[in-house]
């Protein structure tokens, strides 16, 4: 069967499934629309949270990020999982006990301040919108590669499907589609990884294969990889080359940011009990770990695979011949991906071979001179190809490629839907019901939630079609903002009774503005190139910290400012202290549910 038809069957089949679920799980009330009536089983919520959380970045980019940097990018693995420990112990159970629908709603009530609630809405919308742009562009890329339609058509189809099930089903529809999407994406990620691990190490479990023997050389896989890439002038895969302080703070920023992302937090509002919220965070991490334990293995194995393909006689022999690339079926993927402009090679010195090495390394420059090489000839290798082209590189059957296409789309769509729900909830519940029209009827609010969702989908689609040049940068900003503004205020709201309305607002604004300004100083104001005052490097930056690591510092400032301001102004009223007491105790969570 033609590869195109196979891809179409897999993608079409998965979309039909999502739409079927949406029709079955229509939302009839605001409680269903915002929180699936708090009737979701903790394991089911765990799977839905995993899909909600794992975006195109986790599915497509992460293995590549690790493959081309090695140990130093372990920050992504620890940061994006360690946040769940914070979520399970510091936020989720108490916010579930509070028993309302949105994150700004908690901020507004705990800090008895509509201003605090609106600052919360602002932080939520900035973080979520920047995030959703990345998902929508991901949908367009996946469609155009696998279904041979234009980026625009692909994006519109994807947006249409999200529109249908998110507007119709709200949280209820999204929950059950996310479970289906989790199954699709985890299968799609794991199956090619198992094949590759078998080919390289004979071990069917990729996570174990990573630490096993490389069958072809008889050496441990990682030792072999270190050897091969250092021969080519790249830095050691398992070595630590970057700045340690930056690695620690970047990891911490990702952890705090993960725990502070509203679209993840609201997933825990859907379980029946406080104890379920704790348990559900554990299940979410189990489901996430299935991908996160496999991803570093995929990264290392793919890096070794590619290097071996480019140097079929070993690094001391001859590089691969251009003729081989054109004729040998093992290199077909290079031709295919060359067409997407994500991969490029060029025989610069005209010797009929493609030399792949690190031409920035002075030692390699000497070697190159001796051998008559004129620079690295694998001129472009986009890290995102790694996962998407993996089945082709490993020569796997056509249905695996179809599955990867469906998996990439599932990862992007499930996260997009979760983000859109968080945005529409903030608009209809916090902005419209909370500030503009408090007397709105239940049906009116449900309608406004659906309209807000529809408008959000349209805006996200528009931004996906016309991505601001800085789309990729802003994802890092989303984490920094969630870490510096949302996480600290939620934690202080639960763990101390003494932080008051003024302290919370001052803290949030300090964290938000500090982080925003620091990122702009290093990345350019509004990400416009050339407007930055400092280079975004360890040595050149203002505080010796790169922009990605600054969220943790912003969070610390938020805590400090909130405590100082609260100390200087009047203490919280008694009813707020009682509210904190009630949030801390699980008893009565079911009753809080009945109020809605």
């Amino acid at each position, binding site marked *: 069967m033609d590869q195109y038809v196979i891809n179409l069957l897999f993608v079409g089949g998965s979309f039909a499934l999502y739409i079927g679920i949406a029709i079955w799980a229509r939302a009839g009330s605001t409680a269903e629309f915002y929180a699936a009536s708090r009737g979701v089983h903790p394991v089911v919520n765990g799977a839905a949270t995993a899909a909600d959380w794992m975006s195109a970045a986790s599915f497509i980019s992460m293995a590549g990020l690790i493959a081309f940097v090695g140990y130093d990018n372990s920050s992504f693995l620890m940061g994006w999982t360690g946040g769940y420990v914070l979520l399970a*112990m510091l936020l989720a159970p108490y916010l579930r006990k509070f028993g309302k629908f949105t994150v700004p709603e908690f901020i507004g009530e705990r800090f008895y301040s509509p201003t605090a609630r609106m600052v919360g809405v602002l932080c939520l919308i900035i973080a979520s919108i920047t995030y959703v742009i990345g998902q929508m562009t991901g949908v367009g890329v996946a469609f155009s590669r696998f279904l041979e339609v234009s980026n625009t058509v692909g994006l519109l189809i994807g947006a249409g499907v999200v529109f249908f099930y998110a507007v119709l089903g709200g949280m209820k529809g999204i929950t059950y589609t996310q479970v289906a999407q989790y199954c699709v994406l985890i299968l799609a990620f794991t199956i090619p990884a198992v094949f590759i691990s078998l080919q390289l190490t004979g071990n069917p479990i990729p996570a174990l294969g990573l630490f096993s023997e490389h069958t072809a050389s008889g050496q441990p*896989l990682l030792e072999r990889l270190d050897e091969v890439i250092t021969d080519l002038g790249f830095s050691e895969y*398992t070595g*630590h080359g970057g700045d*340690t302080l930056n690695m620690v703070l970047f*990891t911490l920023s990702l952890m705090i940011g993960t725990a502070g992302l509203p679209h993840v937090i609201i997933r825990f509002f859907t379980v029946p009990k406080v104890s379920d919220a704790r348990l559900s965070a554990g299940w979410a991490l189990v489901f996430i770990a299935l991908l996160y334990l496999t991803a*570093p293995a995929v990264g290392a194995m793919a890096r070794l695979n590619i290097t071996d393909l480019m140097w079929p006689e070993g690094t001391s022999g001859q590089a691969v011949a251009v003729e081989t690339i054109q004729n040998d079926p093992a290199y077909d993927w290079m031709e295919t991906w060359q067409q997407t402009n994500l991969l490029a090679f060029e025989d610069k010195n005209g010797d009929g071979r493609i030399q792949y090495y690190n031409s920035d390394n002075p030692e390699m420059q000497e070697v190159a001179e001796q051998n008559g090489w004129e620079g690295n000839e694998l001129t472009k290798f986009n890290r995102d190809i790694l996962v998407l082209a993996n089945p082709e590189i490993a020569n796997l059957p056509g249905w695996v490629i179809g599955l990867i296409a469906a998996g990439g789309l599932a990862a992007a769509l499930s996260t997009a839907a979760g983000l859109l729900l968080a945005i529409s909830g903030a608009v209809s519940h916090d902005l419209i019901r909370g500030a503009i029209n408090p007397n709105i009827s239940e049906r009116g609010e449900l309608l406004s939630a659906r309209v807000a969702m529809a408008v959000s989908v349209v805006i996200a689609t528009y931004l996906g079609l016309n991505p601001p040049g800085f789309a990729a940068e802003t994802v890092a900003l989303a984490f920094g903002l969630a870490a510096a503004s949302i996480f600290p205020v939620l934690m202080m709201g639960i763990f101390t009774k003494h932080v008051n309305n003024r302290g919370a607002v001052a803290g949030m604004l300090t964290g938000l503005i500090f982080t925003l300004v620091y990122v702009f100083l290093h990345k350019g104001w509004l990400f416009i190139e050339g407007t930055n005052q400092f280079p975004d490097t360890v040595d050149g930056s203002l505080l010796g910290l790169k922009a990605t690591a600054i969220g943790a510092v912003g969070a610390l400032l938020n805590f400090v400012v909130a405590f100082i301001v609260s100390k200087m102004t009047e203490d919280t009223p008694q009813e707020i202290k009682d509210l904190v007491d009630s949030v801390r105790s699980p*008893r009565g969570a079911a009753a809080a549910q009945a109020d809605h």
Partner: protein
Amino acid sequence: MSSHNEPAAGSVEEARRKYWAANIRVIAWSLAVWAIVSFGFGILFRPLLSGIPIGGTDLGFWFAQQGSILVFIVLIFNYARVMNKLDRQYNLDEQ
């Protein structure tokens, strides 16, 4: 309400206070482990663990890429289990 003995208001408050103090202790221990396996074994103390080889590299690399994630999972399930016990012990569980 009459089916079982409701403790007096003062003792409910006392139970809540003790329950919260116990919760903080569990969290503090858990987060200490959380920090040691990730920031500690995975990054800062990695040079100290470099003598322990594992599959072509050292233990610190394993903690950074796999070990910390596995420990995180254990920490959350352990927390859920301990808190369920505390909920019941202080009579604050959801009935």
